[in-house]
């Protein structure tokens, strides 16, 4: 008979240890998935709640989500807040009666997330809040027989017309990124994991600015062209490159013959060398205009049927061109969220 309470106490102790471990583990899991600024914001919100409640006060928590946060994120944030409040000696109760009701609303403003706590007790109501920058869109990947990969190479505020990489993949040699924008031709040399500016050549425009300027780099010929200006030289040796104004009236870009993809006429596309059993693959962007996010998708076969899942691009694809060698495509797009122009390479891999 005397053994029973002792055994019970030991089991209760082990059980409570397990519970504490599980709670710490789930808190850790919840915390691990959030950016540091979210964690700090939850801590700050707990501080503010603690400042308007009493030590040991029992709070019943109600949570509402009127933002773009997912239900899983809200659940994780709730857990974090409850833990943070417990650390500040506030008792979070699951059942009434509580000393006060804590209504937490996950909201969103033009600046980002706003997390608001209303503490309702007696006749008075306290409102405290914290703000958090909204993260950029989380891309989702789906399984597909053929997969497109987009690798961001460069981004800048000025509109990129074209770009290219010389010396890529050569053993021991450094590579050069060449970016043609509306104002200059820039050469960057590869350094560690980034690009370092080596030289810029300002463009001498012979024509007034256009709203839809197009330009093109021909790395093999050592030539960059855009309306009213031209640059020539050996692009392997940037110091030899010079730019001058010209008086051509037409854009350097010769429009490619439109092709029909799934019933729509497509002007901008890039034909890549065969991959994954297809003789050739055609990459094309979406159907919206320049105010919408876009996508790039591969099409193959005689009927140009879809051969990959689309990959999302956070803004319109402005240029889509075959890269030398035909294994990937050069893509210039504009990120509608940040406003910057992005140069990226899109390549294909097979899922076997």
């Amino acid at each position, binding site marked *: 008979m005397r053994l029973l309470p002792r055994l019970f106490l030991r089991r209760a102790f082990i059980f409570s240890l397990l519970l504490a471990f599980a709670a710490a583990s789930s808190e850790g899991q919840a915390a691990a998935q959030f950016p540091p600024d979210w964690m700090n914001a939850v801590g700050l919100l707990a501080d503010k709640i603690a400042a308007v409640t009493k030590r040991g006060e029992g709070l019943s928590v109600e949570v509402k989500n009127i933002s773009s946060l997912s239900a899983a994120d809200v659940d994780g944030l709730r857990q974090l807040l409850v833990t943070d409040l417990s650390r500040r000696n506030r008792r979070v109760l699951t059942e009434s009666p509580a000393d006060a009701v804590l209504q937490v609303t996950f*909201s969103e403003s033009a600046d980002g997330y706003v997390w608001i706590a209303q503490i309702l007790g007696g006749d008075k109501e306290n409102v405290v809040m914290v*703000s958090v920058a909204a993260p950029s869109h989380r891309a989702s990947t789906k399984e597909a027989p053929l997969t497109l990969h987009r690798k961001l190479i460069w981004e800048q505020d000025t509109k990129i017309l074209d770009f290219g990489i010389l010396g890529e993949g050569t053993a021991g040699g450094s590579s050069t990124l060449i970016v043609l924008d509306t104002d200059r031709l820039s050469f960057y040399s590869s350094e560690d994991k980034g690009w370092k500016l080596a030289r810029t050549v300002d463009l001498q425009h012979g024509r*007034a600015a256009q709203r839809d300027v197009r330009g093109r780099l021909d790395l093999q010929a050592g030539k960059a062209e855009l309306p009213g200006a031209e640059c020539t030289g050996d692009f392997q040796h940037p110091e030899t490159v010079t730019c001058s104004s010209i008086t051509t009236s037409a854009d350097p870009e010769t429009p490619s013959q439109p092709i029909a993809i799934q019933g729509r006429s497509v002007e901008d596309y890039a034909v890549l060398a065969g991959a994954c059993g297809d003789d050739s693959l055609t990459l094309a962007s979406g159907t919206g205009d320049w105010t919408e996010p876009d996508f790039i998708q591969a099409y193959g076969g005689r009927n140009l049927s879809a051969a990959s899942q689309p990959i999302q691009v956070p803004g319109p694809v402005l240029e889509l061109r075959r890269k030398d060698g035909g294994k990937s495509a050069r893509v210039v797009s504009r990120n509608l969220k940040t406003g910057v122009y992005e140069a990226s390479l899109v390549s294909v891999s097979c899922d076997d």
Partner: protein
Amino acid sequence: MKLRLCLCLATISVVLAGAAPLRPARRPHYGGALRVEIGATLQSLDPAGVATSREEADAKAELDALLYDQRSEDGTFVGTAGSGPFRLSSWEAGKRATFAANRDYSEGRPFVDSIEIQLGRPAHDRVVDLELNKTDFAPIPPEQARQAIDRGVRVSVSQPNELLALVFLGSRSGKEGTRIREAIARCIDRAAIVNFILQKEGEPAGGLLPHWSSGTTFLFPTEMDVRTAKEIWSQISPSPKLVLGYDSTDTLEQSVAERIVVNAKEAGISLVSRALPASGKASPGPVEGSTRGAAIRVDARLVRLRMPSPLPRISLTVFINRLGPIAGIVDSPVPQSASPEDVYYCERSIMNSGLIVPIVWMPQVYGLSARVRDWKQPAAGEGWPLADVWLDSTDPQ
């Protein structure tokens, strides 16, 4: 593996065929004349000139933004006409104007060659012209947006960014003034105004910022409470007779004012509406107006305020600067580095004063023809982006 591939490809094809609209090529084209119709009968495009109504002031600001490249600190346009994306090529006061693309514009020549603007076109005629493809672009009053959609007009609706509010003119102070304001604020049926007058294009307003901007509007109630309004009104003795003013040229303000009078009557409040002479300023007009020489005393008036920025701090600051002197609000500054919490408490203190009663948030609505491409609904504070649009076909028909 092959079967899985086939199934997968078949699925993609079906999804794309169903989802992707068959639209023409997307690279912008230069050329063509954009046909625009507006309601205001502008007599001048001079930025220093005075507009005679709110509608004129708004239209002038939009058109000046196409002609001038620079703004002064107070938001008015300065510099040389034609320094903007367009130049004035013909002008017939109150009737029509033609703008030509500025080929030397620093941000690039606009895509369209010209804009042909017809002035003084009533809202109903604008909708009909859009329906008949006689115009490419026209602002539509929010209360007519649903009707335009039903008639097959292509409509672009912004986030709600224009506040219609009732402002007490600070003539009654003390406990009695507070009670009067609270009774009026509680008796207004905002949901009915949105549903019936605005035809569901808008949302009830409880605060000075819309939800998409501040994220805190749920903290400001918008429900009507006739019982409490009656109770509060019964405590005021003797019951005053109140006058609510509205802009005589604004049919929406008139409808809302008349609705508020009906709501007030249900709560036993003695309130009548009176038309006031139009004010050319975008900000609210004088405390007292006059019609045919007779002075009109008003206790409150309706005002419309467009957000100058999507950012809550900036919009609240501008609203306070505009309404503060009229309503007699003193010392409610928004700090330069205000946090969302600071903005909320500033907004809360103004709401607690009861001097401003937000009624509804309204969107900006535009009708567009099918050939207008790259149209992007301007954000709060932005002008019409007519330099960025292009025409799919230069032939209007």
